Each structure stands twice: as C-alpha cells, then as structure tokens.
C-alpha cells in the first residue's frame, strides 16, 4: 500500500484498542467527569467569569494563563480537557462472572468485526430476496443510482474507533468490498439507513476557501495580493487591473530575473489559462529556494491573487487545472546507514 507521509491528527492520536483487562472502570470515569465539571466551575469563579457559559476554549486560555509553560510539545503542557478526550474509549469486560463470554463470536478473536460482516451479509441476502420477489411479480426494479461522488466510506481508523477493535488492512478492504457489492445492487435503497452508518458526506465543492474582495489603491486602480510557496521559496504577488502585462520581480524585469524560458512560461501560465495576458500588471517579491522553486511560488501567488478578479466557475477551473494547490513535494531527508535519501552505500563483499 502507498505509505503516506502526510498524516492526519487522527493517526497521531492513540488508537482505541482492547489491550488486556480494563485499565479504568466505569465508576472511575464517572468520578473523573464529576471532578472535571466541578473544577470547571471553580476555574470560572477564579477567572471571574460565568460558570454556566464557560466553554472549552475559555478553559484552555485560563490554564495557559495560570500555568505558563515554555515546553515545545503542546501535548506536554498542562491541559484540562473532558475525560472522554483524555482516556481512550475502552470495551467493557466481554465475559460474565462465571467466565462465559457474552458474544457468540468471542472466540474468533475479532468479535465485532466478524459480527459486522455477518450483519452486512444478512442485509445483502435480504436485498437479493427482495429483488427476486420483484422479479417474480414482474415489477420494475428501482434504478436510481446513488450519488457516489458526494460521499466516501469510513477510513480504517474511523472503523477501528467505531468497533473498538484493531483491524488489519485486509479485513478493512474486505469489508469495503462487501459494502460496494451491496450498494451496486439495484434495490439497495431498502438498506439505505444501514449503509449511511458507514459513509461520510464529502464537503460538496471543495470551495471552502474564502475569495477576498478586490482592494482599491489611491489612483482608483483595483489590485489584489496573493502568497505562494514551493519547496523553500516564498513569494508575494500584487496583481493590478487595467495594465499592460508588465511583470516585475524583486525590482527587475522578468527577462532579467528568469533567463530560462520554462520559468517565464510558468509565470504566465495563470494569465494564459484565464486569457488575460495583456490586461494585468504584476509586482512580486520572492526569496529563498532555487530558480524553479521561485517560479512555482510566484505562479501560485499570482493564481491566488487572480481569484478576486474572476468568476467562481473560472476559479473552479483553475483549481481543477492544479494552479491553486500548494505543491507538497520537498527534498527527502537522508537516512542513517545510507548515502542519500534512496542510494545505499556501495555493497562490498568483504
């Protein structure tokens, strides 16, 4: 599988695992919750605020004020959070007083996973039976296609949290395949509520970014700014309206600053894509990185600045052309025991 360098906060948190006997009893957690609520009211009193409307953000600010810490790691600083966030969720003890387990699949080892697969297959057979009934009565099958693009399945980590049990990659992929088979059947609308438990809505239109309005300078010209980065280069661009198409980089003309044709092509890429080559002036500053990195940084900055001049559809077109994403590729680090990031030392037989 593709190893991801980009990790999410969910991965960095400790996974919920049923490892060994219970570490915290239910009574203990209840006591912690009561203590937390009392402590919250005391803190609100101390800070002189209303105990009823004291939110988590207020708590964080109060703790940061009362216990200032110079530690670098945020997780190591003193914090006061709700016990459910601090103590990971645990499974209750799976067997009774006589030692007999409650669940019939306990001895498989992964009881929640297998019971889930069992349930999903039951729904699958249900749908097939319903389909057969409709065919026997010669009624038309419902052929409304479910919108696949607007939702995604739960990730492996989310499924693990739901089941409170560790899963392997293989198990997870088998479950997803079964779900896909279920969805592919024409009469799957019956089990829609069951399927919705395992799918998440993707935010429709990744246009969560706010487009800034145009600013006007002293002479009445419209302009907008944008910032871009690529590898170690950082660039800021100011795009003016009603211009001649002149581009200035760090005080010099682009022909002087970028003697290579490829870099100049990259600078003009956003303008050429929108068809506005002779209409805007640009003044940019760039520092860091190399020749190509600076060109990429300015391209991103100018694309971001041009968003304010252009309709929403064109912004969407720019995004699909890859002009508005920050390139995450950086130089890979050298590893110990190897000469470079990938190259190993020369292998000598003796």
């Amino acid at each position: 599988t593709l190893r991801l360098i980009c990790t999410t906060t969910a991965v960095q948190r400790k996974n919920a695992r049923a490892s060994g006997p219970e570490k915290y009893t239910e009574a203990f957690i209840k006591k912690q919750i009561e203590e937390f609520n009392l402590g919250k009211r005391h803190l609100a009193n101390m800070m002189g605020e209303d105990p009823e409307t004291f939110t988590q953000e207020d708590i964080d600010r109060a703790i940061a004020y009362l216990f200032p810490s110079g530690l670098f790691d945020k997780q190591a600083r003193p914090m006061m959070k709700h016990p459910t966030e601090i103590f990971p969720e645990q499974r209750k003890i799976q067997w009774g007083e006589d030692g007999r387990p409650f669940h019939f699949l306990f001895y498989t080892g992964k009881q929640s996973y297998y019971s889930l697969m069992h349930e999903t297959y039951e729904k699958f057979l249900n749908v097939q039976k319903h389909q057969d009934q409709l065919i026997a009565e010669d009624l038309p099958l419902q052929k409304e296609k479910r919108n696949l693009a607007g939702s995604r399945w739960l990730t492996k980590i989310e499924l693990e949290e739901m089941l409170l049990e560790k899963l392997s990659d293989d198990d997870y992929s088998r479950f997803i395949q079964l779900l896909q088979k279920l969805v592919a059947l024409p009469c799957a609308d019956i089990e829609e509520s069951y399927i919705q438990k395992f799918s998440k809505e993707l935010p429709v239109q990744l246009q969560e970014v706010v487009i800034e309005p145009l600013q006007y300078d002293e002479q009445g010209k419209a302009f907008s700014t944008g910032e871009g980065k690529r590898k170690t280069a950082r660039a800021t661009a100011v795009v003016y309206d009603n211009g001649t198409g002149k581009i200035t980089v760090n005080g010099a003309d682009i022909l002087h600053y970028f003697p290579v044709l490829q870099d100049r092509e990259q600078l003009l890429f956003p303008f050429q894509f929108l068809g506005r080559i002779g209409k805007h002036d640009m003044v940019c500053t760039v520092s860091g990185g190399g020749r190509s990195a600076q060109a990429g940084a300015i391209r991103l900055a100018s694309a971001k600045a041009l968003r304010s001049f252009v309709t929403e559809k064109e912004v969407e077109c720019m995004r699909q052309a890859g002009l508005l994403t920050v390139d995450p590729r950086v130089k890979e680090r050298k590893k110990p025991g190897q000469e470079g990031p990938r190259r190993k030392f020369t292998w000598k037989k003796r």
Partner: protein
Amino acid sequence: RIMPVRWSRYNPSYLEPEVKKESYQKPLEELTEEEREQMELKAVRPIKAAPPTVSSSVFSDPMISKFTNMMMKSGNKVLARSLMCQTLEAIKRKQLEKYHKAPENEKETIECNPYVIFHQALKNCQPIIGLSNITKGGKTYQVPVPLTDNRKRFLAMKWLITECRENKHRRTMMPEKLSQELLLAFNNEGPVIKRKHVLHKMAEANRAYAHFRWW
C-alpha cells in the same frame, strides 16, 4: 490488485490536474455519462498541483517534454530544452528548403510542421510486440510479449536517442543528428526503423515460445 511500492507526498485521494483550456469550455450536453461522473468526482476531491514542466500554452506538448527529459543529462534541463528547440528549428529549415526547391504539384505533400513530423516519426518507430526473458527449466528464452502504450513510446524515444548518441560521427551536433534521424523515421527509413523491424522478425521467429507467457 495494484500494489505501488513508492510513496508520494500526496494523499491517495488527490486527482491528476487537467491543464488544457479546451476541456473546460465544452458545454454540458456533449459529455458522456462517464465524463459527467468524472466531473462530479473532480468537484469534490482535492487536486494535485500542476508540475512545472506543464503549462496550458500551445507550445507545451507532453511528448516533447518526455523526450526532453530523456535527453537530459545530470539534471541539465536548460541544455536539453535548448537542444530540443534547435532540433525542431533544424527540421523546419530542412523542410522549408525542400519546399522551396520542389515543383508546384509536390508542394502540398511536403510537411513543414516540426511537431507533426516528430509525432509521426515516433509513431513509425514504435514496436508492436516486444521480447522478454523468461527462465524455464534452467534456460532463458526470448518470449514475444505484447507491450503497453507507455512502453512502446519509451522504447521508440530511447532508440532514437541512443542511435544519435552512439552511431554518429563524434563532431556532429545533437540537433543535426536528431533532425536527420527524425526525418528518416518520418519517411519510414533509417536505422531506428530497421531496429524495429529486426525486433519484429525476432518475435516472429520465437513464436513457438509464446505459450511460456503467463500474463
């Protein structure tokens, strides 16, 4: 199932960017079902950044950039790109010379566009079938095997470049050698086309071992 071994800095949910302007100007009715689904998917998923070699201008061509990258030595893209431009210029000059010398009726058959010549020459050089070494019972046999599109293009470009680098006189410049090779390949002559035919004949000769292939 595909199991990629390398890792990438992008999340697997990121899609490839589409740079050409024309694909965004098509009205909604002309698209097929698959294209509509693709569009919907693109609207929701994040998209990778466009690489610095790619641009939406008329002058950028993916085949030409691939060829330039293959010609490049130790990361000197500036030199490789200038050699490529000089090659295309040399092709244009030679074709124009031929055009002005040719009689009236032949003037229309002479192709002057260097991009068309490059693409046609590459197509003519691509082998249809390739050979692969399969070891069975201790002996290694050359088994005829179908090639993917990418592999065909790669082989054609590789043959052109090695041909120019090794089999020519030391003092001739690369643009000269390359333009000569491309024009010969365009007319289905020249050493690269011969190499392709040799490969085809070997594959035909080893037809008996074709059943060794298991994919």
